[in-house]
């Protein structure tokens, strides 16, 4: 029941982002969606380095993964801020 609801909210969200329509975005990404995004980030942050990249003895392993994950969150975080509450007016 809740999964189709979240999926539907995300498709609306992506539509709004693509079309620069930000009204209501903050509520589309409601508290349960925040939680979900946080959990996905946490899962990637932990499981990929500790299970998929554990024995890669190179900067191209966990070092690169954690750096890229952080940069991705920064880029999407700033984009989210810019398109929701970070208005210049």
């Amino acid at each position, binding site marked *: 029941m809740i999964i189709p609801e979240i999926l539907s909210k995300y498709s609306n969200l992506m539509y709004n982002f693509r079309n620069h*329509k*930000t*009204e*209501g*975005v*903050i*509520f589309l990404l409601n*508290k349960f969606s*925040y939680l979900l*995004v*946080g959990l996905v*980030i*946490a899962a990637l*942050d*932990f499981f990929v*380095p*500790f299970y998929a*990249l*554990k*024995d*890669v*003895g*190179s*900067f191209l*392993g*966990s*070092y690169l993964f*954690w*750096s890229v*994950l*952080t*940069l991705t*969150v*920064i880029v999407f*975080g*700033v984009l*989210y*801020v*810019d*398109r*929701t*509450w*970070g*208005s*210049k*007016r």
Partner: protein
Amino acid sequence: MNSLYVWISLFSWIGVATAIAYLAKRGLGEGVTEYFLGGRRLGGFISGMTYSATTYSAFMLVGLVGLTYESGVGALGFEMTYLTFTVFLLAIFAPRFWIASNKYDFVTPAELLSTRYESKWVGVVAALVFLVMLVPYAAVQLMGIGFLVEGLTGGEIPYMAGVIVMAVFAGFSALWAGMRSVSWTDAFQALTMLTTSLFALFYLFYHFFGSPVSFFRTISLENTELLKLSWDPRLFIGLALPWAFFALTNPQVSQRMFIPDRISSLKRMIVYFSVFGFIYTIISTLFGFQAANLLPGLTNPDKAMPALLTKIPTALGLVIFIGIFAAATSTLGSVILTLSSAVSRDVAKALVPHISERNELLAGKVFIPVLLGATVLFAWLQPGLIAVLSSMASGGLLVTAPALIGAFFWKRGTGVGVLSSMVVGGVITGLMYATGYKPLGWWPSVWGLGITSLIFVTVSIFTTRPRKSEKFVESINSEVKALGAKRD
């Protein structure tokens, strides 16, 4: 390194920082908000730099370098986890904190809790949690500098001399003009931290490894084990969890969400901080790998950075030393100022509601030297490894996370729920850290967050919801929504 050079560079830098603090003081107005929040008139750049300098401390170039030296890539993961979640939390909570602080004239994060949960005791207990947990964290900054000057001069400047010089300067900059002098000097300190460390990093690349590319190649070949993730997953979670919530639970940074002059400055604060944090984390861990390759076999990993500084020319070593001193001092100054605002607003004003604004401010100012004395004492006793100690402070502060999240997202949360969760959760977490007890191998922070959340939710369900909680949550959320709608 000659101790005279260290003293000269230290006092020259303090001279420049003092001149900046003097300029900041010229614009200082009257009152508590003016003193503790710079009158909520700070622009995006100064806000971003003070956020960065407050967050990133001596831990980075002393503790994190040591942790990377000892345990490799896991240290980067731990610090990047912090940054990732800080950006995530700021994107959600920064506008809410900012709107709430402007709407209700909040000066401290504990005040936000006491207003939202309609209980002055919530604010008092939160302020006490902040005080108890942040004293060791502030002391860690002093210890970092103490170790550094001692290591750098081969003991010519004793550990306690470094500690005392730093404590006096940080106290002075906090006392002089409050948030204005602290944030202006923080901006200078942040720029010092970044430029000096970048300069030294590239010197080491070219002088010892030939180029950045050959550095990465050398480490991959000669220190392969450090690039493999050797951390125990439970240690990683235990250390990273408190830091993931740092942006909310540490009042010296969450208070900085109150200070920008407008919402666009708040956005720029997040952007500047994110960029600064990413670059500074990469630099710090690369120093750790450099030290591991150039100086293998050190028994105390916290001495890796001081030892690395002895390998570079004196002038460059001094520049880096100043960068670390700046990092530690800015964090200490901000912590001291935030804690004095907590004493002023959350204890003095809460317990004596009719206190004059002048006396309220005086209570906070008088507390600054008292607090500094306590941190110096703690640094003198030198407990534990720096990284673990820093994390313990954040681990203890984690008990405030459910209440802070609930303040904006759970109307049902009650004052009794907050009080019981912070008191019981705080005592249990503190006891676990003190005794080293880790049930099932999981760190106290993990248990602390679980227990605190459980108590907060359970007790809140069975107690009466605050009368105005719905109005508080809905008004803040609708104002955030309105900010987004303005763009269309």
